[in-house]
């Protein structure tokens, strides 16, 4: 049966992807190694830390078989610093995403979220990873006792969400920058929420400007197109 959903991911689907992110746990019980479909799972030996996909960590947590160590960026200090950056230092742009690991060799598939470990216990503390909102919300719900100050973290997450959504909504002006614009630092759930609006505006403007676009293509077919050397960086303030 065909899928009834339009293109674009729904919040539960974005959360499903987020559940593949690795997090660090401290097992409270032993678990033998398992051959899973997504690759082998190493044996769990308390109190040795282990990194597991979030879905498994949540399953262990619910059964009280493990505690989860929240990633360093999900601490009151880090979130407060990032929130200050988002509201004061950079009122228009998102805070930069975490630094990428060194580029893979040309013979490996470049990994990207959720397969880059950005939420384990040794992840950087100074940047919000792609799935920050989903991962933070799910951990706060399932493992509030694993946080030092869950209420403060919850409050800061809400503040960040509001500050950043306002930026996304105010960004209408850049949407007709021909070709595209950079949105570095944006989060998965945020894109899920803003996607239909951004796409609707871009496609609406594209329709209005279509006649001009077609006239230009027509001229180019007649004159032959020679790219100019002018380099204009179209980087918008929505980084």
């Amino acid at each position: 049966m065909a899928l009834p959903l339009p293109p674009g991911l729904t919040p539960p689907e974005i959360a499903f992807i987020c559940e593949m992110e690795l997090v660090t746990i401290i097992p409270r019980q032993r678990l033998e190694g398992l051959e899973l479909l997504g690759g082998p799972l190493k044996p769990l030996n308390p109190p040795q830390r282990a990194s597991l996909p979030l879905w498994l960590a949540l399953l262990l947590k619910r059964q009280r078989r493990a505690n989860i160590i929240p990633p360093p960026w999900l601490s009151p200090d880090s979130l407060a610093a990032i929130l200050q950056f988002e509201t004061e230092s950079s009122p228009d742009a998102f805070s930069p995403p975490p630094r990428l690991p060194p580029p893979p060799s040309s013979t490996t598939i470049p990994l990207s979220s959720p397969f880059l470990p950005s939420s384990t216990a040794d992840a950087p503390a100074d940047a919000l990873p792609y799935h920050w909102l989903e991962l933070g919300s799910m951990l706060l719900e399932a493992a509030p006792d694993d946080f030092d100050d869950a209420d403060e973290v919850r409050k800061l997450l809400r503040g960040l969400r509001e500050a950043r959504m306002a930026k996304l909504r105010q960004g209408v002006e850049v949407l007709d920058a021909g070709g595209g614009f950079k949105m570095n630092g944006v989060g998965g759930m945020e894109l899920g929420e803003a996607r239909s609006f951004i796409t609707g505006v871009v496609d609406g403007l594209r329709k209005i400007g279509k006649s001009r676009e077609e006239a230009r293509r027509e001229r180019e077919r007649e004159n032959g197109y020679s790219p100019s050397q002018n380099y204009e960086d179209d980087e918008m303030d929505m980084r």
Partner: protein
Amino acid sequence: MDIDDLLAEVAVDTTPQETRDLQALTRAWVAERVAPEMLAWPGSLMERVLERVRRQIELVEDQTGSMDPKTNFKLIVIQTELERFKFLVRSFLRSRLRKIDAHPLHILALHTDADEMHPLLSPAEHQYLTSHQTLLSTHYASSFLSQFPSSLQRLDDTTGGISMVDKPDEDAAVFVRVLRDVGEVAVEGTEKRFEMKRGDVWKMYDITPGVAGSDRWARDEGQNAVHSGERTK
């Protein structure tokens, strides 16, 4: 270059094949969910994944009934993961079915033109499309088309300036994430250029390749269309 070629290249990688397949399947699913057009069928990836899913189901069936609480929890983990895989495969196949239903004739033409080594549709999808189309046209013919003048009975007429064969909006805007440095990209008909670097997230439309080369640059390089976005061009 499709996912299988990419996988062939990484034989030296130490990551287990199972893990790489999960990454590839996730990427294929996201891309299929967000792209307005049909993407090529990842044949060997799907063969491997479905075979493993089948074996895992057998394993679960064999071990169900075991009363040992330790084995029991292992089974819960295995089953939870199995359900996640089944969701991925099912959602992937169903979003492809949605596209087949929406633009059957367009997709059939693309499939017919495609390279045999890299078919657009799986054999089952192709069979579904053709049988479904046959049923539909028989139904249309018997319920109303046969009463029209013969010149008005076609469903794939292209005369009159507008084709009856519908296709998705191929210029729709998309979100992409850049997986490898792409280099400079030019916007057709303008002097705009921009540099696309690994890790960037872009919203883009109406792009033609600049120095990046092949017109399939983004399909190879940028295709991990962020978890959102309409298409990866």
